[in-house]
């Protein structure tokens, strides 16, 4: 051991060491000081700060353009604070408790309500009273927390459905399946034709939740989806069991090794005509360019239980919240009002036409065929759900649900123990 003992080193003299210690202490002290900083101070009244989770270049430029337009219109300055998309979600808890920006990106549903109920975001009912004419009642419901007040301004929305290439289907003479049996028959035919019937990816942990949701509300209906997500129904009960049994029946038609694949790769399989269908949100269109994009079409998930038909569509809403103590409350409200306008939403969607505006006043003449269909599908639905991870407690979604679904895909025969694990965790999480 003596070999490792310190010998006098030219770089580690007493002075150098002292300097290093001082520097180290300084660095250590900085975050501590920052954390003690005053709350919400420093913002001038002619500026609004904006927390942005659109970190990819195209949507980032789009939202920047929208905010520039707002600056021109209102005379206020907007300071944009962009964070990497996934990181933003992971840090939202600390972010909201620290010094959040005045206006910040978020999602509708339970995910919004959770923070609203903790008092971490600002009440927007005042803004809503001005803008409510532009929104359908379902959107208001999705922006309302349990206290009856609104905490979110909806911005854009996208439906989930089964996507396919029109040219491939025309060539092979496939038809849209209306029921589960037709879906199975079509998948069998595709398999015989040498296609992977259903493209599938689960590396990111969430795409499989979409499949679970569709099967669940087609089999058990909208109400059951809501109650199950709220922890009021039993994951070990026969209804959830039936969802997984149906999924098991469909699994042989899904692309293999889904756990090692990202959704973009699965979308490529559809784009290259190797896969016949892909169940995903309409953002799948981001993987299609030019003529390929015109070739893309979708249909709502087929009916399974006639009692519920196709009455529910999954259409997550992205929007904006206000921080609990904005530095510039007036400016923040003005900005949120602006973001509720069709002009702002359409300007943003120019960059990403895979989604649709939430404002019902938006001019639909410039829509792509896909956008028209998206809007129609959402309009026709009696119930709109958000998404498993937006409709339930984030603690349940991120750990129990993700790993439960992964375990099922790995080992579908192990259903008993998987469902027991999910049910046990739902019990502990929802009773906390």
């Amino acid at each position, binding site marked *: 051991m003596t070999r490792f003992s310190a010998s006098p080193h030219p770089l580690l003299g007493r002075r150098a060491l002292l300097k290093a210690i001082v520097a180290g*202490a300084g660095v*250590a002290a900085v975050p501590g000081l920052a954390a003690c900083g005053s709350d919400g101070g420093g913002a001038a009244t002619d500026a609004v700060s904006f927390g942005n989770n659109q970190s990819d270049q195209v949507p980032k430029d789009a939202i920047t353009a929208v905010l520039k337009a707002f600056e021109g219109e209102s005379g206020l300055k907007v300071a944009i604070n962009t964070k990497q998309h996934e990181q933003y979600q992971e840090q*939202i808890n600390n972010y909201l408790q620290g010094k959040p920006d005045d206006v910040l990106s978020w999602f509708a549903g339970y995910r919004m309500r959770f923070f609203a109920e903790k008092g*971490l975001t600002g009440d927007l009912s005042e803004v809503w009273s001005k803008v409510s004419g532009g929104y359908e009642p379902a959107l208001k419901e999705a922006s309302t927390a349990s206290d009856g007040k609104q905490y979110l301004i909806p911005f854009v929305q996208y439906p989930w459905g089964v996507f396919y290439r029109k040219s491939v289907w025309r060539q092979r003479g496939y038809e849209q399946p209306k029921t589960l049996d037709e879906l199975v028959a079509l998948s069998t035919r595709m398999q015989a034709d040498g296609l992977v019937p259903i493209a599938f990816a689960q590396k990111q942990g969430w795409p499989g939740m979409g499949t679970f949701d569709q099967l669940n509300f087609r089999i058990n209906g909208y109400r059951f989806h809501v109650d199950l997500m709220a922890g009021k129904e039993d994951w070990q009960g026969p209804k959830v069991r039936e969802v997984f049994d149906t999924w098991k029946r469909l699994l042989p038609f899904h692309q293999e*090794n889904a756990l090692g694949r990202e959704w973009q790769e699965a979308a490529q399989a559809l784009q290259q005509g190797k896969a016949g269908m892909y169940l995903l949100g309409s953002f799948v269109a981001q993987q299609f360019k030019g003529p390929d994009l015109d070739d893309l079409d979708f249909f709502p998930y087929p009916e399974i239980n006639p009692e519920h038909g196709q009455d529910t569509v999954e259409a997550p809403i992205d929007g904006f919240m206000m921080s609990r103590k904005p530095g510039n409350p007036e400016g923040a409200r003005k900005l949120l009002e602006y973001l509720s306008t069709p002009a702002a939403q359409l300007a943003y969607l120019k960059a990403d036409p895979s989604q649709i505006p939430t404002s019902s006043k938006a001019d639909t003449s410039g829509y792509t065929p896909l956008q028209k269909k998206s809007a129609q599908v959402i309009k026709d639905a009696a119930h709109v759900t958000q998404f498993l991870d937006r409709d339930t407690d984030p603690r349940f979604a*991120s*750990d129990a649900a993700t790993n439960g679904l992964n375990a099922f895909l790995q080992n579908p025969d192990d259903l008993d123990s998987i469902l027991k694990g999910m049910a046990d965790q739902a019990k502990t999480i929802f009773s906390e």
Partner: protein
Amino acid sequence: MTALESPAKPAGTSAPSPTSRRGRRRRATALAPRDKLVLGLMLGVPSLLHLALVWVPALGSVGLSFSSWDGIGGFADIEWVGFRNYVDIFTRYPRFWPALQHNLIWLLFLLVVPTVAGLLLAVLLDRQLRFGRIYQSALYLPMVLSLALVGFIWQLIYQPEHGLLNNVLGTASTDPVNWLGDPDINLYAVLVAAGWRHTGYVMLLYLAGLKSVDPALKEAAALDGANAWQTFFRVTFPVLRPVNVVVLVVTVIEGLRAFDIVYVINKGRNGLELLSVLVTDNIIGESSRIGWGSALAVVLLLISLGFIVTYLFQVFREEERT
């Protein structure tokens, strides 16, 4: 900069000296005020930092592990639940037992494979091979990379269709092995990557140890008619004992803190669960379960303590004997 002034106080008390009280006082006064200040800073600042950055969080975790708290609001919002988190983790958390098992496999693997490989390489390199320095640098090089980066590199090797390994094996086009996606084998695939990096470290430690072995010992052994094996196992290896202890400690630390490589590969899911991943998953994120995550962290702490206590016990017993 209060951090600089306050630690000056404990300077007198913390100046260590094994001698008698009188001797200590005389010696303390013998120090010039300037030296006292320097000594105080050198001992006080690290002590304070250590206390604030290690002990307070560690004890805080232990305390919070008996609570149910989502990290929102102040201390008043914390609900104390006693041992419920622990009971739930042990009885109904499906990811816990696999994670614990993986951690122990990880530890055992690192203790056996890279240690043996590192020792072997060190012995070979110690024989003054031609180009020895090049081999030495090449083998040590992975250690310079962060484990996260090692994860990226090995993902390129393990990739099913385009990866190096499947192409070398000729299985890429026919039936590619999903090295990192298959939960039955991915832990071992990752262990090879982690071991690849760790071997270089162990090798360097042993190499340093071997260089310090007195050649006279080997000569004496040779004169006594010992062959190479006997010389190594009866003479050289026992002399390396202090290095063995260092390797053991380093390996245990590496094994238990493993996190970055699996997180880079698939966020520690699907067969790559480790306790450190579960702690992170539960504490960091949209809404955290601070109590639950802390309880997991305490379990990890207890496992680490098991090794540390055993080690210290050994060392102290050794000291008593001498």
